[in-house]
């Protein structure tokens, strides 16, 4: 953040003799004042932004590739609406590989909001986007989604629970070290998506929503 440089080894011991004139003092004072102003600007404008940007987040990272140049993928369990509309079904889907649990969580979430494969119905409203995914020190993952998940939601506690647990289960089933998942909307904590399911705290895996005996 600073332009100040330490003298290199070639300069040490070869310090030229400098005559300090009044002009030099003025220049030094002016430069010092300039640096002070720069410092003030940094503290006021830049620092708060730097301090509030979470470090443990993934927005977009380069895709890992296999030796033959194809994007490396894992098989992940994703959850779609069952044909009866009242439970979830598990489906194995190729998802881009992530080098860290956080990166993997992001890849999984990207796949969760994608249009469903042929023959499946998504429990997530169309148009939902993933803004960011965060991993907290306590093992909880925070999934920040675009507002379409609220505005496009058809409502009802059943639909709402299916939407929420399609997300929570996708992250917790594929990443066993994740304790819970909290859904954020447009960067903010929300009470609910449609008025029923409490999203103020992270939610744990809930396999009772998944059809048995698949």
């Amino acid at each position: 953040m600073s332009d100040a440089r330490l003298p290199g080894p070639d300069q040490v011991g070869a310090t030229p003799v400098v005559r300090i004139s009044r002009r030099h003092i003025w220049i030094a004072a002016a430069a010092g004042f300039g640096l002070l102003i720069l410092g003030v600007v940094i503290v006021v404008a830049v620092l708060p932004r730097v301090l509030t940007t979470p470090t443990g987040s993934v927005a977009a990272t380069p895709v890992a590739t296999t030796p033959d140049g194809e994007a490396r993928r894992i098989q992940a369990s994703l959850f779609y609406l069952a044909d009866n509309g009242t439970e979830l079904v598990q489906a194995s889907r190729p998802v881009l590989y992530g080098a860290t649990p956080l990166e993997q969580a992001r890849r999984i979430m990207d796949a969760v909001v994608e249009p469903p494969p042929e023959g499946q119905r998504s429990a997530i409203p169309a148009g939902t986007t993933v803004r960011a995914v965060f991993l907290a020190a306590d093992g909880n993952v925070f999934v920040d989604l675009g507002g379409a998940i609220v505005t496009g939601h058809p409502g009802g506690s059943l639909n709402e629970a299916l939407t929420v647990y399609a997300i929570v289960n996708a992250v917790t089933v594929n990443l066993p070290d994740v304790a819970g998942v909290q859904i954020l909307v447009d960067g903010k904590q929300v009470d609910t998506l449609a008025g029923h399911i409490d999203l103020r705290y992270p939610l744990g895996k809930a396999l009772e929503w998944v059809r048995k005996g698949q």
Partner: protein
Amino acid sequence: VRSAVLSLSCLCLLTIQLLAQRGPAAYTVVMPDGKRISLPYRTAGSVDLVPLDQIVAAFGLTLTEDSAVGGLTVRGRGQTILLIPGQSMASVGPGRIVSLPAAVQESGNTWLVPVDFMRLALGPSLGLKTEVRRSTHLVVVGDVRLPEITPRFERIGGNGRLTLEMKPAAPARVTREGNRLIVRVDAAGVDLAPATGLAADLVPGIRAEGTAVVVDLGPAASGYRVDTPDAGRLVIDVLAAGAPPPAPPKPVATDPPVLELPPPAGANVRTIVIDPGHGGPDAGVRGPGGTLEKTYVLDLARRLKAAVEGRLGLRVLLTRDSDELVPIDRRTSLANNNKADLFVSLHANASMHSDTSGAQVLAVNASHYQGRLEAARAADLPVPVVTGGSRAIDMVPWDVAQMPFADASQRVAEVLARRLTERKVPLFTAPTRQLPLRPLVGANMPAVLVEVGFLSSARDENALRTNDLATAIVEAIVDTISEVRRDGSSTSPQ
């Protein structure tokens, strides 16, 4: 140097401008003597926060900060109210704790409290009835008559009918001055809600002026007729030239009066809070035939209220009695502050599959909140005692107040599912279920959420619209309250 000074002053100006843009949003507080005080507020989530020092000054009280216990004490007129920053409660007088819809918080060098602090803590402590009208940003203190007037305009034939609903009722007199009607209300002022559906030819405008409501008459208006079918309802028929005058308005059937019967021995259920879900901009589910969840459950709630009051003689409160969006925490705090014995939230369900149908009764899933409760208990929060010092109490955070009642709520849910079956209300494949339910978790009493059916299903929607099914649902809930009331154990906390 000059440029540095310039850039610094620019920064200062920018800051001042940013601060200035935040204002000027204010509540008007009408004091018992009719004096009006402006109280700036800030909205945090769904709660309006107001500066405590200005409230204290308006009422001639004193505010002291107790650094030892980190509390704020409001004193005066022989009363003491204690607040703790970060906590959403107030200790009023000796040992009465009231929960507030949001925590007391610091902003700059002032303390902010939810505006409902005036209604829940300050008013009761000073013996002054205090009413907070959030829609018009008005706080009415004491017995000041300041009716809330809701105008409604409709066309009847060629004429127009303007109905002014006044809450509370106040005498009013109507006179004509040129092309305006002046409705003088015998009150300290009027609180006029925005008018909807006005017609430019008959009534182009309506506004409040002091203690009067001024109604502008349009070019087609030739005469008027005034009726007061009920106390609190003033009907002005604006007559158009040539059109036959409409029939006079009929009085509206009012709810049956609350029966204040002494509870029978052993009965521990006295107050029921019914919560019609959603409201206002949040319509909830929309059925294929156009039925809106918010409207359906409000109608059902009103029927249920009349049935429980009339047949069981219990006190029934509705969390909303109009098409408005009441914040969830305000709904449960209404129940908590009125020491309700049962909280029943009414909703309608939706499924992506149009054949999914049936009613379901939901209760809170306690395991989801266990961590939150343990964290709060581990903190072992000392509570300042009014007489000085502090003591540690076993506390349940207000936002998970439902926790100790989770089992009792599940028992009520099971009774209700059985009673619905007995009344031949079709049930969903899972008749009861426990979920982390936001509408119930703040209720400090047994609480259930009834999904009356799936509005996403045309079959359910049509059935719910029939009087038979709506009556059966109301009867099943009345049966449940009656059973729970007999079997007192099912409403006790763990």
